[in-house]
């Protein structure tokens, strides 16, 4: 009997149903609801969701068989839409993920000898398009960096050098102002 755990963003770990057989049919769906803020967009564009396959052995602790990662940037940069009469919907992405065996399981065997325990078939999607929001967050970050750069001596954000100090002098009035012209 095996099960798969799913770790995504700041959500608690989710698990599929316990499934029997050498070709287990998990057929489990998870929906992770999150606020689309800059952290979320950053996470999707740069991070991975991780899946772990565990073997449940009766009363004992489950044994981790292996793990695999889902590259989430595919959701952002590989965003496709499907024809829908009501609205633009994001297309479902199907992947076969290579299960890397756990080091404790392979024991003395080298990783090269046991490269894969097989694969997990998954389907994923974001319910709403993300690319526009990604571009918006990128633009905001660019503006912030440029603004910060203008305030540093080196002209780069995060520069160690001391920030430039800007002094504004406003001339209010002049009295008995005389300017010498030419060389009399």
């Amino acid at each position, binding site marked *: 009997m095996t099960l798969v755990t799913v770790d995504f963003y700041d959500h608690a770990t989710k698990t599929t149903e316990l499934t029997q057989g050498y070709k287990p049919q998990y057929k489990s769906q*998870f929906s992770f609801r999150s606020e689309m803020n800059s952290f979320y967009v950053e996470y999707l564009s740069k991070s991975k969701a991780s899946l772990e396959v565990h073997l449940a052995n009766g009363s004992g602790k489950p044994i981790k068989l292996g793990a695999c990662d889902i590259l989430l940037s595919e959701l952002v940069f590989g965003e496709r839409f499907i024809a829908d009469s009501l609205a633009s919907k994001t297309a479902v992405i199907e992947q076969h993920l290579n299960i890397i065996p756990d080091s404790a399981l392979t024991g003395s065997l080298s990783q090269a000898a046991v490269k894969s325990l097989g694969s997990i078939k998954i389907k994923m999607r974001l319910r709403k398009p993300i690319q526009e929001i990604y571009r918006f967050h990128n633009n905001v970050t660019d503006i912030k960096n440029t603004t910060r750069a203008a305030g540093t001596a080196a002209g780069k954000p995060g520069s160690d050098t001391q920030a430039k100090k800007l002094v504004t002098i406003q001339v209010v009035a002049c009295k008995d102002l005389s300017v010498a012209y030419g060389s009399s």
Partner: protein
Amino acid sequence: MAKRVDGQEKVIKTIKQRLGVEARPATTGSTGVSPSRGAPRDDDAMSDFEVDANDGEGRLNENFFDLRVIEA
């Protein structure tokens, strides 16, 4: 009455669900749910995903990452 073919049924279900969702206020919080438990779910036409009837598309600033672990 003759039963509609699956595809048509799915599309009609989705249209009904969407019309209902727009009028329904969104709930708060972010959770991951298993398909076999919880609130009633509808098939999402054009994909294999089931959508929780209470979720819809969430608030304006929310998104759902739907994941199906199918087989190994």
